[in-house]
């Protein structure tokens, strides 16, 4: 933390911003997977991040997979060609999409040409990220119970002209048919702005 604070004074560069956002996705996805019980809770371990205790997976395969995705994201974020990251949670049995976590990314493409770092303290960004992660945790208050075993999928929306890299494939949006959507907080590094949202299956409420 102290190290990060020391870097604060330097402001935000494009590369730094991409790193921060990618890191957020890494922890955010981990949090979702834990909170929603996609993987058994025993396979998670606690770490301190953003001034919170977060749970990250210890499963090597999952870790590996997530790292790959995050690395890829970092690259795209740096290039400012990524628009959206979606975590789709669907039932293993019938592939029905039950939850959809959507992170919209607004890239300030003018930052590409800039050399001077933007002025925003790391602490301020961390505070914002923290509130987003907290909200993810708090969603249990309204999200329906996931009764069946679920799997997750990651969708990344990029600019159109991007060639699909190896290990990635094109996919549909995987929307939920009858869904309730709740906007969560957003955060910005001044270069990348991330708006979060969760959509879930609507029950036949009155």
């Amino acid at each position, binding site marked *: 933390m102290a190290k990060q604070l020391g870097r604060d004074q330097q402001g935000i560069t494009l590369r730094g911003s991409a790193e921060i956002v990618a890191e957020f996705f890494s922890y955010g996805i981990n949090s979702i997977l834990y909170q929603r019980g996609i993987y058994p809770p025993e396979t998670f371990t606690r770490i301190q991040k953003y001034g919170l205790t977060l749970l990250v997976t210890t499963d090597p395969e999952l870790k590996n997979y997530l790292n790959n995705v995050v690395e890829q994201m970092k690259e795209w974020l740096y290039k400012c060609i990524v628009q959206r990251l979606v975590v789709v949670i669907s039932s293993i049995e019938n592939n029905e999409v039950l939850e959809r976590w959507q992170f919209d990314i607004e890239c300030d493409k003018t930052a590409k040409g800039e050399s001077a770092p933007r002025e925003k303290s790391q602490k301020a960004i961390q505070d914002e990220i923290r509130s987003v992660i907290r909200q993810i945790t708090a969603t249990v208050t309204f999200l329906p*119970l996931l009764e069946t075993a679920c799997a997750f999928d990651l969708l990344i929306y990029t600019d159109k002209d991007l060639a699909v890299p190896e290990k990635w494939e094109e996919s549909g949006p995987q929307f939920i048919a009858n869904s309730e959507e709740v906007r969560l907080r957003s955060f910005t590094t001044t270069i990348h702005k991330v708006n979060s949202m969760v959509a879930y299956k609507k029950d036949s409420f009155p």
Partner: protein
Amino acid sequence: MQVEFKGEAVMSQDCNDEWELSKENVQPLRQGRVMSTLQEALAQQETSIHTAVQLKKQEFESEIRFYSGDDPLDVWDRYIKWTEQTFPQGGKESNLAAILERAVKALNEQQRYYKDPRYLNLWLKFGNCCNEPLDLYSYLHSQEIGTTLALLYITWAEVLEARGSFKKADLIFQEGLQRKAEPLDKLQSHHRQFQTRVSRQTLLGLEESPDEKDTDLLGAAEPQRSSLADLKGRGKKKVRAPISRVGDALKAANQNRSFQTLTSQQLSNNPGFAVFDENSASGPEIPVLTPQPWTAPPAPRAKENELSAGPWNSGRRPRNSANSGIEVPYPLPSFTPYVEESAQQQVMTPCKIEPSINCVLSARKPEKEEDPLQRVQNHQQDTQEKKEVVMYCKDKVYAGVEEFSLEEIRAEIYRKKAKKKTEEEMQAIAQKKEEIQRKIEELEKKLKKKEDDKQQQLREQPTEITEALPPLGLQGFTFSSATEAGEKQPQLQSESQVFEDTQLHKPSCSEDTQRGNVFLDSEDEQEEQRDEASLGKEDVRLLPPPDPATFFAIFDESSTLANQNISCSADHTQKSARRPLAVRKPSDSLTAKESIPPEACDELNGIEPLTEDAIVTGSYKNKTLCANPEDTCDFVRAAHLASTPFHGVVAQRVPAPAFSQSALKEDCPESKNAPLHQETLVCEGAYNEALCVNKLSPIMEASLEDTRSSGGSVSSGSSLSSVTQVSTIKYLRIPEKLELAQSLHAEMVTDSGGIGENITGDDVTQFLWSAEQRKKLLDPLPESVTASPDFHLETGALPVMEVEKDVELGNETYCIKWKYWTNEEYKMFFAIPANFPQLDAKGFAIKVYSQPVPWDFYITLQLQERLNTEFDQSFSENCSCYLYQDGCAILHRDINRFTLGDVIRGCKSITEEVILLVVYNLLGVVEKLHKAEIVHGDLSPEVFFLGDRICDPFANDEMTRALKIVDFSHSLDLRLQSRVNLPNSFPISQTPHGKQLLVKSSLPYQVDLVGIADIVHLMLFGDHVQVYQENSIWKISQNVSKTVDSDFWSKLFGRILNADGKSTVPLLRELREEINDMFDSCFHERLCESLAALGETFLLENFL
């Protein structure tokens, strides 16, 4: 820049933060929550939303009570779901447990729901409120509720699993699979997951603590943190707090830890743990789940914040113990709670629960100690062996969670009815609209055609038009009449179709609105008159030819539809304005006197009787044995019966709509002459006046003056005012009709009260035979009267009748020859046909009544109807009634000229035989009258015309037909006037003997007995009866012994005078039969001689 970002952050916070701020107050729901509802519920600091929630709740509550569909579960389902969503923090305020309990009770034993997933859900949710859900599940299982649904087994197994009873949980799954519970795949997948979980846990347990596997394996396998676990110290020597650890902390725990295994009573019988082996799961040693009958009631749940019932004085808590808790120093935590940097900004999370909502004093449930499940079961048993019958709609009062008052229920029923009514009305209006629309279109087409015709016509006959049209404009006709006039030209061309259409169109038509507005709105009127005038001019000039559309441009549809009320009243206005036209027709007349809409009485039938019974007891059909004073209708009817000078019951004889319409059509040719229109205008003015008067006082004055003045003025032009007044009240006041009727009734009641207090003879006489009274009784005129072929409604006033003058009744002219008697109100004449001037023994009796009430005629018809075959020559078999505006004449045909009075006066002494004959008939007549529940009220020798038996020398030997009675001036129809009990108001009660014999409590029939006694006495002794009382027995002063048959006469008088309280019909019959016994052949001979003598000595001399 920084500022900008912050702003954004704040913005996003604004729309989202409620749920996050209060996340601790939100109970997670299996099916999730609706964010909007959640936000709303959490933001409900404003009382307005709180009220909205209450309203919604109230709505559900009343829906539960008044649900009429076939799926009551639906209402409960929605109610429960709504409650879950709306009260995220749960707790007392949501009352969810109570709602579930009620729902379960209400839908108890509804077999059709047993396979409904909603019903099962209801039970399962209810199970969460119970102390021991497991008990509930086995109950459901034994009752076969939801046993076909996978959800039951899944939930059941989950709970068992959570408690560590994996074996049992697996059994439950097996049972579900065996039953093929739906959806089976879901059950299977749950089972699979369960198995994986268990095997993994078991493996973990095996790996990590092999030593403990025998003892604590199952407990360790699924660590369950028991909330609010008992933390009290245990042990005597060394106090040790029980440890309840979960997860990683568990590994470090030593052997001594104690698990808080929560087991139900049933589970506690579970034999020692056995390691679950998937492969041997189907082995024979596994006990099969058998549906367990419900044995013992489940243990009561220790609800928080509830004291157990006990004596009040022993419940006091020692003070020092309260303090001791404070003195204990609690250890400082070894960790530092994380405090956010930004935390200072927010001092505290705002309180989300409004304190005002938590009404501490409300909703304390009965039988707190009981388990809900037990309550439900008790309830079931109660209903099974219930013996009491609830005499009010208990189910409605207590259907939901909240108690409804009877008023609320009543209001709801009322609202429902009102709503239905409105809907029906709206539908009717819509239909009408459509119809009108169609007709308008039709008419437009035709008018267009007409218009063309007219133009041609105008060109051909320009002069005629100039004659006809200018007055239209000048006199300021209403538009409609102008239209009619305008259409007249084509009509004169013998092409009347359009006009007829218009006529047909009118009664139901919104077109009339325009006319109605003319009456009501003078500005409009002027405007339209101007239009009309210009239209007329255009017509005259023929330049340019009038656009056919102009006519209908004024029938502004939008304005018509805009205000239905106006359209309605205007419609009626139209009718009332038209009425005068019809009056001019000689054959029709209106009795304009009644000021009460006839509907006022009929309206009673339409009123929903507001009885407590009907609403409160609902289907229980509690019978009331007497008229209910709470019932508005009964009350009003009763008020009718206990009536007083109550104005206006003479019927409106003419069936209005048909009459006005047909009359109008026939009158149409007349409408071309201007004077008639003038008159129409007058009538409109009068109408407006009437309307004003009405507004001032809806209570009609019921004085005689009013009646007479309007009656007398019928022939004059101004009579129209009264006519319109009638129709005004009848049609225009419809919205206030009820009110009007009620105020009239009120007036009537007070009047009757006044009379009851100071009864004087005159007043009462007035009251009993007043025109008002009878008018009221015969309003509307009974169909028997109006439908009779002998009933004639005459226009104009009652013709003047005097002796030796001719009078025209119906189509015949009669010459009045004789006046029997006359008084202020009644006259009785003898007349012969004017064209057969020779005087005969037989002729016509004309009874004239100065009030337009055909009372005698009515009584005669009633007698005919009630006596049927017994209605014979003793009554007027052939009479006609002529009802005039101000009076009534009844013509009796085939009447002998002489009355019994003539005989008594003319003969010094009447022979015994004749007297017996007369008395025999007299008794017979009165017997018949009384049998028909009619009291004559004024029996005297004068009212009895001699019958053929006496007057006709060739009459046969039978003993009947000696008397004929036609006058019923003072008669009472006890079927109509059942409550009348005032015998001393009859004329006879003013006589000395009447005063003596008739007491206040006497029956009305008694009056006629006194009359008989008097007549008999007159015939026997030539003077009126004189009576005295001896040993409380009435006797006559005259010595009967001088007469022949003295035994009989004394007996007759004795019985007749002392018949008070007894039924008169059998008495009269008995006496008559006794006379009959005296008739023998020699009696007949003597009778013939006597009658012959009577004819010679008496009748002949009077002939001359």
